[in-house]
């Protein structure tokens, strides 16, 4: 029989037993919906975790340091020097890192202790410079107030615990000014000291002196969580200011003391640089490239791999769990088609008497099974998506009541839609195997005798 005729006859047969066909299709739809809902939950949670972790900067950054030989380290800091094949972590290296593929940005860490004066009361804390790129990466999701108005704005974002130290009503701090007192590093003329390997600002100098300074900043935001742009990043900073502003302050940093006593190299170098990749999966390649260039690197790439393995297993478990309903639906299809054989036994006999081959009868049952599978698959995807939306809505109502930002824990990517529909059709075809071959093997004489 031609495909068009086969399809027409199959649809006609399904229409004739519309209640049973619909219920079977609904069974498949529930099975597929269960599968889609569970898998989309797994994918959604993975995406959420990945996004959060990616935003945290723990997994998409490489910390680059100047490579030093172990021997030189044993000699002590005063005599320590870069390993033979090591290169200086200077501006040239920074530019090279920026040119590497898949690198989003390269910046140096700026973090220094400070004394904050607010309403005449002093508070000790740590200031951290925040790169402009942090604006869009989600680290500041759920911020009260807003992000810095510009890369050079004299503005500050407070970590909530520090804000609570300043005021019992942290939100009232937004728009208020505070004073930051810090130690500015001022370069000394060459004869006053030796050239350190510490900071670009001290190039061609003999060291630096410390001068107390003040800076007025306007509070623009308060953040609940502590944004950590990398394990060596601005984590632990409780007063956050734009990186460019932080750099321009030329505040003395912890490393400065160590660098001040190191042997001079004649070239300004950074203590460390943070290289951020487009995504966590690209960190490995960047790390290898930087190592080849003669620098020491550190990343948490292994941790991302463990996370990936965890979610693979998690997804697999959800797939198995979600498939149980589909397995039950498969039994429904088998039952429907076996019943159809009993009901249509005489009809099968007539078809055979009129010239239908065994394969025509078999194909007819297969098409009926696959139509139920296809419709069930499409409906199931819609149901699964609706379940996801409904659960997400419920979660967000709960989160809102808890004053937490809304989130989407379900994700239905296009491949999942395709997978669910293809799986539904394949499962239906498999379910149709036994009934179809049984129908095809019916003896026409016996089938015609059946009343």
């Amino acid at each position, binding site marked *: *029989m*031609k495909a*068009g*005729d086969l399809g027409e*006859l199959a649809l*006609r047969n399904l229409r*004739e037993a519309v209640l049973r066909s619909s219920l079977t299709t609904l069974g498949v739809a529930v099975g597929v919906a269960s599968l889609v809902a569970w898998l989309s939950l797994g994918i959604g949670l993975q995406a959420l975790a990945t996004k959060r972790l990616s935003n945290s900067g723990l997994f998409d950054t490489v910390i680059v340091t100047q490579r030093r030989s172990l021997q030189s380290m044993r000699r002590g800091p005063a005599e320590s020097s870069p390993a033979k094949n090591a290169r200086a972590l200077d501006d040239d290296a920074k530019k090279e890192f920026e040119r590497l593929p898949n690198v989003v940005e390269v910046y140096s860490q700026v973090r220094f202790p400070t004394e904050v004066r607010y309403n005449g009361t002093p508070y000790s804390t740590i200031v951290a410079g925040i790169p402009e790129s942090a604006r869009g990466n989600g680290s500041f999701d759920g911020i009260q107030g807003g992000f810095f108005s510009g890369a050079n704005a004299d503005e500050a974002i407070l970590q909530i615990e520090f804000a609570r130290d300043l005021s019992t009503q942290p939100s009232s701090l937004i728009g208020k000014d505070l004073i930051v007192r810090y130690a500015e590093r001022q370069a000394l003329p060459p004869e006053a000291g030796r050239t350190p390997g510490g900071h670009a600002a001290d190039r061609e100098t003999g060291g630096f002196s410390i001068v107390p300074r003040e800076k007025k900043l306007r509070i623009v935001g308060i953040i609940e969580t502590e944004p950590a742009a990398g394990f060596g990043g601005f984590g632990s900073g409780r007063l956050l200011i734009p990186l460019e502003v932080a750099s321009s302050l030329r505040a003395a940093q912890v490393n400065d003391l160590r660098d001040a006593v190191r042997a001079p190299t004649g070239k300004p170098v950074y203590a460390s640089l943070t290289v951020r990749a487009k995504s966590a999966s690209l960190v490995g390649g960047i790390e290898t490239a930087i190592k080849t260039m003669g620098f020491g690197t550190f990343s948490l790439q292994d941790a991302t791999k463990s996370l990936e393995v965890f979610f693979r297993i998690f997804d697999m478990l959800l797939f198995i769990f979600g498939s149980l309903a589909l397995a039950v639906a498969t039994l429904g299809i088998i039952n429907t088609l076996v019943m159809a054989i009993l009901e249509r036994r*005489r*009809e099968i*006999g*007539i*078809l*055979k*008497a*009129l*010239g*239908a*081959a*065994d*394969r*025509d009868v078999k194909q007819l049952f297969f098409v009926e099974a696959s139509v139920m599978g296809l419709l069930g698959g499409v409906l199931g995807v819609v149901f699964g998506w609706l379940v996801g939306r409904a659960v997400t809505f419920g979660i967000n109502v709960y989160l809102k009541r808890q004053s937490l930002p809304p989130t989407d824990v379900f994700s239905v990517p296009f491949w999942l839609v395709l997978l669910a529909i293809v799986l539904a059709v394949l499962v239906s075809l498999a379910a149709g195997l036994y009934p179809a071959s049984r129908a095809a093997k019916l*003896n*026409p*004489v016996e089938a*015609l005798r059946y009343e």
Partner: protein
Amino acid sequence: MTTSNGVAVHADRVSRHYEMGAAVIRAVDDVSLEVRSGEFVALLGSSGSGKSTLLNLMAGLDRPTGGAIFANGRNLSELSSLELARYRSRTVGMVFQSFNLLPRMTLEENVELPLRLAEVDRAERGARVQEALERVRLEKRLTHRPSELSGGEQQRAALARALVNRPTLLFADEPTGNLDSATGESIMLLLKEIQQKLGMTIVMVTHERPLAERFADRIAALADGKLLTDGVKS
């Protein structure tokens, strides 16, 4: 289609035995019968005589357990399942006592069904259905379902369905069994007309001797699976 000597179907020492536990039912036992092209043969016998079984064997609906049936110049026993289906589709037309129309299809769809199975082009089907229905004078009942037709009309529709693929052999299993005598006679007249106009070979099973004597060219009588007499009607 006939063999070179003008034989349309030839049953050569055909047997169809069924095993029921330890017992063997000999539904057809060592029967030989030749049906010539264009001939109208009646298989006459009482219930259980094996006439329908013999008809089913000749129509390719069943396979013999012994002997051979030649149709179209080929031994049906040696045909594959697919080849046998093609034989039923293209060479044979079947009419049953209980009409066997599909109740949820219209008359037109019922008659079109063999064309679908024979993979006849869609464009050609309409005319073929119309032609078959005109032959049985039901061309105005295209959209009716079987339940909306009388018994005689249903049998005529079944006849149209049997003719639509233009077969050379028509097998009719008690075609008047479910009809009153007047309607039955009209169906027999129609069969005779088809035989004469189309030159079709017809093998009809019946247990009504008068009907067989009146319309068939030859009567083969069976009893207990054996052929009793085979000859021109008395």
